[in-house]
C-alpha cells in the first residue's frame, strides 16, 4: 500500500449537537474577507428573486388585461416584459451561483492553508496518536463539507427563505383570503416533513456508517489478499463481506423506503393545495371577488412555493454535518503548536549567528561538550494529556565535539527516543539537554534544527528528483553526493540526479534510499549528525557501500548514532549501552567487552561468541 492511491474509510463519530452559535460565528468570520462578493451574491439573489416573482404577476396581467377582455393591445409588450424578467432572473441566478461558489472555494482554500500550516507546527506526538487517514479526512472531506455548507447551504437557504417570504408577501398583497386557503395545508406539510426528516437523517447516518465499515473491510482484504489466499480463507472472507454488504444494503433500502414516502408525499400536499385553491378561488372568481388572472397567478406561485420547502429540509442535513465537520476542523486549528514554534521567553536572546563566529568563540574558551544529557526523564505523551509509560529514567551522558557516540541496546531500551529528544521533537519531563553548552529549549528552532542533520531509520524520501531530495537538506550538493556514494549509482542512470524517486522513494532500492538520505543529511554540513541506523537488510554489495559511506560521514563529525552494524559500533569513539531507559555502560568496544556486562551479553547474542 505504500504506492498507488490510498483510500481512507475512517469511521468518525458524527456528533449531533444543536446549533452552536459560537461555532457558526467563527465560521462566518471566514466570510468577512469576501464581503464584496458576498454582497454581490446577495444582491443578485434579491434581484433574481424579484424577477422570478414578477413572472406569474405578468401572466396575471396578460390574462386580466388581454385575454379576459379579448384585447390584443399590449399583449406583445407584456410578453416581452415576461421574457425580460425571465432573462434577468436567469442572469442573476448565474451570477449568484458563480459568486457563491467562488466564495466557498476561497474560504476553504484559506482554511486548508491554515490547517496545513498548523499541522506543520504541531508536536510530533500529535502524529503519533493520529492515524494518517484521520488527518487526511480532516483536510479533505471535512473541509469539503464546509464548502458545501457555504455554497449550497448558507446562501441558497437565504435564497429559499427570500423566495418563500417574497411569494407569501405577493400573495397576501393580491388576496389575503386566497392566501390563507393556499397555506391551509402548510401546517400539515411541515408536520409531515419534520416527522420523516428525523427518520431520514438517522437512516442516512446509519447508512454512511455501514458503508464506511464495508469499504474499510473491502480495502483491508484487497491489501491483505495474499494472507487470505495463504490461509485459504476466501469463503470465510466472502461470508464476512456478505454480512457487511447486507447490513449496508438493508440500511439503504430503509432509506429508499422513507424517500419513497417523502417525495410523493410532499407532492401530494402541493396537489391538494392547488385543488383547494381552485375550489375556493373558483367560487370567488364566479362571485367576482377576485379576477381570473389572480387565480392563475396564485396557481403559479403555489407551485414555486412548494419546491424550496423540499429544499429547506435537505439543507438542514447539510448544515448539521458541516457543523460536525467544522468542529473537527477547529479542533485541529486549536491544537496547541509545539513549544519550539512559540517565541522564546528570553525574547530572542540568542539570535542566529554564523557558524564561524561560534567556532571562534569556542576556540577561545574551554569548550563545553557538544552534546550533554543531564538526568533526562521522559515519557511519550498520550492523547488525553496523560503521560504514558516512562521511557527514559535519568539518562546522562556527554559527547565531545568531533566524537561519534553509538547507542546500543535491546528493542525498547529508549535508543531512538534519545535522538528524538535531541532534535526536540518532544518535551522532556525532567532534566536538561545541552547542545554546545546551551539548553535546547533556549535555542531558537531554526538555529537548533539548522545545526542538526537527522537520518531516520526508515529512509524516507519525498517524491521528486534525487537532486531535489538532497537539496532539501542543504546547499553543499557536490560533496554530499560524492561522499554518500549517490553520484556513483545515479551516474549509471539515464536521467542521473534528475531521476524521479517516486512516491516515498519507491522507485529506488532500500539501499539506494539510505544513500540518498545520507547525502541529504550531509548537504548542510551539519555540526551534529543524528542517525538512526536502518535495520532492514540490504544485499551485501549495497551493505558494503552503505558501510563505506557511513565510515566517511561519521569520521571527525560530532554524531549520535543508534547503531546496529558492528562496523559502526566498532568505529565509535564512545559506546552508550542503554538498558530499560538508562545508560548503563559507556566506553569503547574493548573496555566494554572486558567489563563483561550488558554489552558483552548483547554482543554475544547478536554476533555470536566473541
Amino acid at each position, binding site marked *: 500500500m505504500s504506492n*498507488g492511491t*490510498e*483510500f481512507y474509510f475512517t469511521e468518525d463519530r458524527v456528533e449531533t449537537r444543536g446549533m452552536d452559535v459560537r461555532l457558526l460565528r467563527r465560521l462566518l468570520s471566514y466570510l468577512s474577507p469576501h464581503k464584496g462578493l458576498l454582497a454581490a451574491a446577495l444582491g443578485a439573489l434579491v434581484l433574481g428573486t424579484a424577477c422570478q416573482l414578477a413572472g406569474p404577476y405578468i401572466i396575471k396581467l396578460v*390574462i386580466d388585461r388581454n*385575454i379576459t377582455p*379579448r384585447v*390584443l393591445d399590449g*399583449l*406583445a409588450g407584456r*410578453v416581452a416584459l415576461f421574457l425580460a424578467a*425571465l432573462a434577468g432572473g436567469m442572469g442573476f441566478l448565474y451570477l449568484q451561483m*458563480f459568486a457563491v461558489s*467562488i466564495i466557498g472555494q476561497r474560504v476553504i*482554500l484559506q482554511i486548508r*492553508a491554515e490547517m*496545513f500550516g498548523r*499541522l*506543520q507546527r504541531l508536536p510530533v506526538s500529535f502524529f503519533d496518536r493520529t492515524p494518517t487517514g484521520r488527518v*487526511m479526512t480532516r483536510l479533505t472531506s471535512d473541509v469539503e463539507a464546509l464548502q458545501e455548507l457555504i455554497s449550497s447551504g448558507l446562501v441558497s437557504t437565504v435564497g429559499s427563505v427570500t423566495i418563500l417570504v417574497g411569494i407569501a408577501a405577493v400573495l397576501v398583497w393580491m388576496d389575503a383570503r386566497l392566501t390563507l386557503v393556499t397555506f391551509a395545508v402548510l401546517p400539515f406539510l411541515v408536520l409531515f416533513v419534520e416527522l420523516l426528516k428525523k427518520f431520514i437523517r438517522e437512516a442516512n447516518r446509519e447508512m454512511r456508517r455501514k458503508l464506511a465499515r464495508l469499504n*474499510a473491510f*473491502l*480495502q483491508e*482484504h*484487497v491489501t*491483505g*489478499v495474499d*494472507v487470505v489466499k*495463504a*490461509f485459504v480463507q*476466501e469463503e470465510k472472507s466472502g461470508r464476512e*463481506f456478505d454480512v457487511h*454488504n447486507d447490513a*449496508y*444494503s438493508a440500511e439503504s433500502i430503509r432509506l*429508499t423506503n422513507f424517500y419513497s414516502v417523502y*417525495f410523493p408525499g410532499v407532492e401530494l400536499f402541493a*396537489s391538494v393545495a392547488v*385543488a383547494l385553491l381552485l*375550489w375556493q378561488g*373558483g367560487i370567488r372568481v*364566479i362571485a367576482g371577488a377576485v379576477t*381570473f388572472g389572480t387565480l*392563475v397567478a396564485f*396557481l403559479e406561485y403555489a407551485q414555486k412555493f412548494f419546491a424550496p420547502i423540499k429544499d429547506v429540509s435537505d439543507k438542514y442535513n447539510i448544515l448539521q454535518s458541516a457543523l460536525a465537520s467544522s468542529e473537527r476542523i477547529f479542533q485541529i486549528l486549536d491544537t496547541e503548536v509545539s513549544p519550539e514554534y512559540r517565541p522564546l521567553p528570553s525574547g530572542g536572546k540568542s539570535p542566529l549567528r554564523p557558524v564561524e563566529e561560534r567556532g571562534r568563540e569556542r576556540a577561545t574558551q574551554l569548550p563545553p561538550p557538544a552534546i550533554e544529557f543531564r538526568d533526562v526523564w521522559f515519557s511519550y505523551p498520550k492523547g488525553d494529556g496523560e503521560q504514558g509509560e516512562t521511557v527514559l529514567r535519568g539518562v546522562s551522558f556527554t559527547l565531545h565535539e568531533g566524537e561519534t557516540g553509538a547507542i546500543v541496546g*535491546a*528493542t525498547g531500551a529508549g535508543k531512538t527516543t534519545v535522538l528524538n529528544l535531541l532534535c526536540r521533537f518532544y518535551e522532556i519531563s525532567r532534566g536538561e539537554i545541552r547542545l554546545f553548552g546551551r539548553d535546547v529549549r533556549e535555542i531558537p528552532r*531554526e538555529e537548533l*534544527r*539548522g545545526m542538526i542533520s537527522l537520518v*531516520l531509520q526508515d529512509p*524516507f524520501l519525498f*517524491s521528486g528528483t534525487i537532486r531535489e531530495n538532497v537539496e532539501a537538506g542543504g546547499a553543499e550538493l557536490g560533496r554530499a553526493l560524492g561522499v554518500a556514494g549517490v553520484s556513483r549509482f545515479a551516474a549509471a542512470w539515464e536521467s542521473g540526479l534528475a531521476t524521479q524517486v517516486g512516491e*516515498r522513494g519507491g522507485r529506488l532500492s532500500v539501499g539506494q534510499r539510505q544513500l540518498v538520505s545520507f547525502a541529504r543529511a550531509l548537504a548542510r554540513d551539519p555540526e551534529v549528525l543524528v542517525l538512526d541506523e536502518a*535495520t532492514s*537488510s540490504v544485499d*551485501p*554489495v549495497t551493505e558494503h557501500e552503505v558501510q563505506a559511506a557511513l565510515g566517511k560521514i561519521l569520521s571527525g563529525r560530532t554524531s549520535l548514532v543508534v547503531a546496529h552494524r558492528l*562496523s559502526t559500533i566498532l568505529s565509535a569513539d564512545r559506546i552508550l549501552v542503554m538498558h530499560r531507559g538508562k545508560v548503563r555502560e559507556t566506553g569503547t568496544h574493548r573496555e566494554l567487552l572486558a567489563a563483561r556486562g550488558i554489552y558483552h551479553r548483547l554482543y554475544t547474542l547478536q*554476533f555470536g561468541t*566473541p
Partner: protein
Amino acid sequence: MIREAIDGISAPDGRGRVVRAVSWMVLFAFLHGGFRYFGRRGMLVTARRVEMRLRRDLFAHVIRLPLSFFGRTPTGDVMSRMTNDVSAVWLLLGPGVLTLVGTAITYVLGLLFMARISVALTLVALAVAPVIVVASREYGKAFHRTHRKAQESLAAMNAAIQENVAGIRLVKAYGLEGQEERRFRGASRDYYRQNVSVARTSAAFHGAIGLLAGLGVTLVLLLGGWLVIRERLTLGGFVAFNAYLAMLSFPTMALGWVINLVQRGGSAMGRINEFLGTPAEPREPLLVPPRKVPDAPFLEVRNLSFAYEGGGRGEALRGVSFSLRKGEIAGLVGQTGSGKSTLFSLLLRLYPVPPGTVFLEGRDAGGLPLEEVRRAVSLVGQDPFLFSDTILANVCFGRDLPDEQEARRAVSMARFLAEVEEMPDGVHTVIGERGVSLSGGQKQRATIARALCAGGELLLLDDALSAVDSETEQEIFREILSARGGKTVLFSTHRMASLSRCDRILVLVEGRIVEEGTHDELLSRRGAYFDLYSRQMIARELEAT
C-alpha cells in the same frame, strides 16, 4: 381537470362543475401519489438488491483472482471499481431507470393531453425541447470532463498531504515547513481553480436551461394568449396547457442527466466485467487425485524455474531442486532479491507452478486441489499484515472456527502471550486502526502465532522475525522447534546465529541453489555461505587481533 374547473368558472352553472373537477383532482392526486410510492419503492429497492448482489459476486470473484492480478492492478484501481463503479451501476439501475420511466410516462401522457387542448400550441412548446436535451447532454459531458480534472488535482493534493504527514519528522528536522506549505498551497490552489471551472460550467448551464425552458413558456404565452383572444382556445385550456408544460420542464432537464448517467453506468459496468472476466485461480482438482507415495520426501522441488509476469526482471528462480524430509528444519540463506520470497510463494502456489516441479509427499502439487496445498503449508511473510479485528480472530484466521485454547497456545509459543494479557481485553483486544496499534515486533509475533494456529504441516518463515530482538528470536525458535510435533520447517533469516539450529541450510544466489549442507559443512566448504557468514564476522576477527 384544471381546465374543467377553470372553464367551469366561466360557465353559467359554474359552482357544480368546479366542485366536481376539484374532487376528481384530489382523487387523482392521491392515486398518483400511491403509484409513485409503489413504483419508486419497487424499482429502487430492486436496484439496491441488484447492487448488493453485484458487489457480493464481485468480491467473491476478486478475492479468488490470482496474485499476479493484484501485482499488476494498483489497490486504488481495485477499490474504485468495487466502490465507485458499483455505485455508478446502482445510479443507472435505480434513479436512472426510475427517471427514464417517469420521464417517458410524463411525456407520453403530457403530450397527449396537451395535443388534445391544442396541437399548434404543443408544437410551439416542443420547439425548444431538443435544444434543452442537447444542452443538458453537452453539459453532462463538460461537467464530467471538468469534474475529472478536479478529481485529479484533488488526488495530487491528497498525495502532498499524505507525504507530508508521513515525513513530518524530516520536515521538522530540515526546517522544510515553509517549503512544504508553498508546495501544498500550489496543489490546493490548482484544485481551487478546477473547482471554480466546475462551478462556472454548472452555473452557466442552470442559467441557460432556465432561460430555454422560459422561452418555451413565453412562446406559449404569446401564441396561447392570441388563440384565446381569437376564441380558438378556452381560458381553462390555456391555463391547463401551461400547467402541463410546467410538468414537462423538469423531465426534459432530467433527460440530459439520465443520458449521462446511462453512459457512466455503462462504462462502469464494462470495467466491472473486465474484472469478472479475468479467470480466477484454478481450483478444480484432477479427476484422479494423485496418491501419496509412502517413501517420498515430505517436500520435493525439482528443477523449478519461475519468472514474474511482464518480466524484464528475468527469471527469479532458475532450476531450483531440493527436498525436505518430514520433520526436518531447513534454513534458506541468500541476499535480498535472490529469490527466497518467490520460492516461498511458489510452495503455496500463490503463483502458478509448472507441473512436475513441486511435490508434497510424492504428489505433484500442481495436480492437487489448491485448497489442500495451502492448508498443508503455513506461511509467515516478510510483511506482517494483520486485520483490524481482535487478536483472537487474527490468530485463528487460518481456522474455520476460532479456538481460544489453541490460539493461546500459539500466542504463547510466539512469545506474545505476556504482552497480550496486559492488554485491556486480552486476546479479545481489537488491534489496528480502530484499536490498539502493535509495534513491528508484536505484529511479527502475531503473524507467527497465526501460522502456528493454522496447523499446516509445512511451516515457512520468510524473514519473519526481523523486527524482534535476537534474544526473543532465539526463544521463539527454540519454542517452535521443541513443540513443532513433526512439522517440517523452512525459514530464512538474516541473523546467521539462528542458522546453527538447522538440519540443513540452502544457499540461494541469483535464483539458484548453489550450496546445501549443515552449518559446519558449509563453512568448511568456504563458498558462498562462508562469504556471507564471514561478512558478519570479519569485524570480530579484526577485533581479536
